């Protein structure tokens, strides 16, 4: 298990995102509504830098020809093919079998944010 320093927790505001290099692994930490989440910056579809894409809300399902949009920014959109992944659990909005890798994020007693990577992940 390895831990990677992201930075001081009090500098990490809702809507912020930071990308760190974790021994060659690119990992993004997001603040969604005050909660921190970490995702691998690698799209499971074709390997694009997923976490450099737009973060935004989601269009909600409804009856045909109606549109409802939830503005809570809960997804990151891949910069290549526009596939959406939920920042909170890495799940693809379109394909339940497809996940972006997620990691635990912790704020330690030193008031810094850390990402935890178990070996081999």
């Amino acid at each position: 298990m390895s831990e990677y320093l992201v930075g001081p927790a009090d500098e990490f505001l809702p809507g912020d995102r930071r990308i760190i290099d974790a021994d060659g692994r690119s990992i993004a930490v997001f603040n969604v509504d005050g909660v921190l989440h970490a995702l691998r910056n690698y799209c499971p579809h074709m390997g694009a830098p997923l976490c450099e894409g737009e973060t935004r809300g989601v269009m909600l399902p409804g009856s045909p020809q109606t549109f409802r949009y939830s503005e809570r920014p809960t997804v990151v959109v891949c910069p290549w093919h526009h596939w959406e992944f939920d920042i909170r659990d890495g799940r693809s909005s379109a394909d339940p079998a497809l996940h972006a890798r997620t990691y635990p994020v912790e704020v330690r007693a030193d008031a810094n944010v850390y990402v935890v990577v178990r070996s081999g992940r």
Partner: protein
Amino acid sequence: MTIDTGAGERIAPSRSGFLSGAFDSDVHPNFRNGIRDLAPYVESTAMRKRMGLLDAPRGSAARVLRGDNVVQVPGAEMRLPGVNYTNPGGTMRLDAMPPDGGPPGSDPRFVVTDHLDRHGLGGALLIGGGVLGLGGIPEPEIAAAVASAHNLWLEDVWCREDPRFRIALVVPPQDPALAATEVHRWGRSPAVAAVYVPGTDNGMAFGHRHYYPIYEAALEYGLPVVTHPGGESSGTNTAMIAVGKPEYYLEFHASIPQVYMRHLVSLVVAGVFERFPTLRFGLIEAGWAWLPHVLWRLDKDWKGLRDECPWLQRPPSEYVLEHVRFTTQPIYEPADPSDLGTMMRLARADRCVMFSSDYPHWDADAPEMALRRVPRDMRRSLTHDLPSDFFRLGR
């Protein structure tokens, strides 16, 4: 909101190096400042005036006196037609933006490092991203002027940067005589790899005799003719109205192959490859997995309908395999990835499909990832052998 972006993980070139020296049959160079980029390449002052580019790069040519000041009137610059449907996420790969800004695909040096060098490619066909809808410009002489300026721009800005960039010479499908003139202007240039007739939807599929002067001109120089989607629904073109026009970008985009099925059937049935027995024709980004169905049906129907087109001496599918080439992107992603090889065998892909990425468009393929499911014994024909033969690379 602040965004820090670090150095993202980038796909490393494949260890087996199967892309080393490969030719990419679909890369899009884009304008940095729209059509103003072409102003230095429009020789005729009258045509610059007609295109609203007299004052470029300052902007509109139309100016009026307001009080003591001369002010520019916005909107006098011509607009290049593009697809009329809106992709909510834009049509570019957002990570392909040059480091100093500007649209993806607008900085030749960055395309070299971000695409050619990253994957070890030996060459790429440049299909102008700004002129995909050129066939929808209403005025033929303006379409021809845009095409000429665009070809000069490609040579000056792109091929000068890296000789691996090869020109798809854009010509106006509206006016085949003017198109042929452009081909004669460039036919012997080593920078040109193909004559590019933008995908169009003007009521005449590519087998129509309207286009024959373009094919004749291309043949004089041994150049293949290629086409590419983007003209459908652009400008004065109709919107692929086979059974009614699409209402959403998704409908438009997913229906693109339908248009190219029609072009392919038209080319064969009209006897284009009997009339021009050495013509090579490329349907770029038109798909290929539909070939087994269309070619089987064409052959089957032909057996009972030969009286209609007695000029066809062989089954239609044989003309296609001999004369027509298709491209990989978007690579098919069957539920069981091992089925890709089966699909390729059914489509005779080893004879008619060439590798393409579509960089930097939003639906581009990552070359290594896209081709890793292609059976090893088929890769080299896609990446090297077929493009080398089709574009006469190294001639």
